[in-house]
């Protein structure tokens, strides 16, 4: 009962603020509502007893990415940037994506009974008997999935170094 109240609260907040995020004209308000959405989703993670995911969502998305978003928004002159020609196909692409997602949802809901239950969840465990999931996550990341993990981290490192090199070379060409 308490669980479902929490779920509907967080889900409602997430959906409402996501809608507000899209409809606000003021970009900073949009950013604030995006933060609210992300926090509400973190709340849903916590309600599902995924505490590591909850705190990762907060640290990475709210504390890291959103801070950078807002930083960029503050540095850009909005009155100039908003009057530039934007990407014209945006509405078309967005409606395509929405259609695809809606179709996927409908298909899953329609076929939910026919699909094997193992597709959704391996075995159902009572939520308060789950093992602590930071330990479980560390166990699977650093033992069974060590190689993919290392490959992913090397990939990220390459991307980071690449971004730094590109930024530096652009600055040098601007100076010369």
């Amino acid at each position, binding site marked *: *009962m308490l669980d479902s109240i929490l779920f509907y609260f967080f889900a409602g907040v997430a959906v409402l603020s996501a809608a507000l995020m899209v409809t606000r004209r003021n970009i900073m*308000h949009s950013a604030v509502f995006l933060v609210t959405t992300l926090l509400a989703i973190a709340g849903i993670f916590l309600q599902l007893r995924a505490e*590591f995911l909850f*705190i990762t969502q*907060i640290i990475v998305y709210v504390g890291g990415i959103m*801070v950078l978003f807002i930083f960029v928004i503050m540095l850009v002159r909005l009155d100039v940037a908003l009057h530039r020609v934007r990407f014209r196909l945006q509405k078309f692409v967005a409606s395509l994506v929405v259609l695809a997602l809606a179709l996927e949802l409908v298909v899953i809901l329609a076929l939910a009974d026919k699909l094997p239950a193992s597709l959704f969840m391996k075995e159902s465990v009572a939520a308060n008997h789950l093992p602590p999931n930071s330990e479980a996550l560390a166990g699977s990341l650093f033992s069974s999935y060590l190689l993919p993990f290392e490959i992913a981290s090397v990939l990220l490192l390459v991307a980071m170094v690449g971004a730094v090199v590109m930024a530096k070379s652009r600055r040098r060409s601007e100076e010369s």
Partner: protein
Amino acid sequence: MTVLLQFLETWWVQLVCGVVIVAVVPLIAGYVVLVERKLMADMQARLGPMRVGPHGLLQPIADALKLLIKEDIIPRDADALIFWLAPVLSMTAALTSMGAIYFGPSFRVAEDINIGILFIIGVSSLGFLGIILGGWASNSHYSIIGAVRSTAQLVSYETAGGLAIISALLLSGTLRVSAIVDAQASNHMWFIFMAPVGFFTYLVASIAETNRAPFDLPEAESELVAGYMTEYSGFRWALYFLGEYANMIVVASIATTLFLGGWLRPFPNVHWLNWIDLLPPLVIAAVGAYCVYRAGKQPVKVQVWFMWAVALSCFAIAVLYVLPWLVQPLRFALPGLNGAFWFLLKISGYIYIFMWLRFTLPRYRFDQLMHLGWYILIPLAIVNVFAVGVALLLEAEFGWNRWIAMIVTTACTLAVSIYLVRLQDKRSAAASSATAVTSDSYAG
């Protein structure tokens, strides 16, 4: 209705503790401000606040009252919604993160959270959104420059701070706050002695994260009036201030838990030093006795009374500490009481270092701040994580003595830090000879 009752029945202890934190932290923050002003006055050879109460002891309450009844101004061109939201966010984040802190083996708000230390760090870092949004919403140049500086500083120093924390987490092998302290008890050593470089890095990073001198560039009063708080007044300003001091307490608790042994007394496992457990009531009683001594010298009658009141409350607390020793059924409360005493003592020591540095060091220039963060602290923190890992590996795989492994790796880390400082000196010398004035886009 039944759900609500069920909820209250399960969680009433946590709710009461939460209410106590929200009610008490503002008072504590006020008195931290008073201590800071008194210390500053002492270091500058003056008296500090003396008028309100004996030795200014009622000054925080007077200040809070003044702020509450001040006019609340929202600038006409400000973004009202975000202007309203920002200070609340700043304070809420700091107070919420306090929920996971252990003030002693049994003094806590939340249950023993599995990801405790990450929760404290993650939630308290949300407070920066308040600073950034407040600076933007004020629609003023000083505010926005303060906010931009604050963001750049946060991004640089949170990285170093996070990496510094990892070195202690590697040693304890858990994220659970109570287990981290237990690990220090079973190691017979606080982690500050095993990873001193990590502690030092965290100290510097935490000063920068709490926007305090010498890293208080987001609110540098000689350049930016008050930085992101310029347009705020009255109660909203007080909320920002409260958030800042609450954040100081949070940061000090993180450092205490990770590096200074949490609620453990000095030498927790040495039995012939058990008399240290008697120190808390003695120290508190001594403070009370000093108040009695000062009471005779107060010029005004009200001040004499107040001094006596402070002395009596000190004696009452001391009796509370002595009681478990005398009455057998109350013995269970002893570890909790002593733990809270040592934890608060360590927090106070850490905050004292903050204040000491503030009154001693001049403010950094912004490019110096960035250089210190990116060229020295972050590489140092990375090397330190690596070194602690190597030391643990040497112990586990090659059977080295833990102390030898730790000393060798710490020496290597220090060598790297000396090299980094040398490199930085050379680089800045080259830069200053190349161009007389270096421009910096963040400096405003």
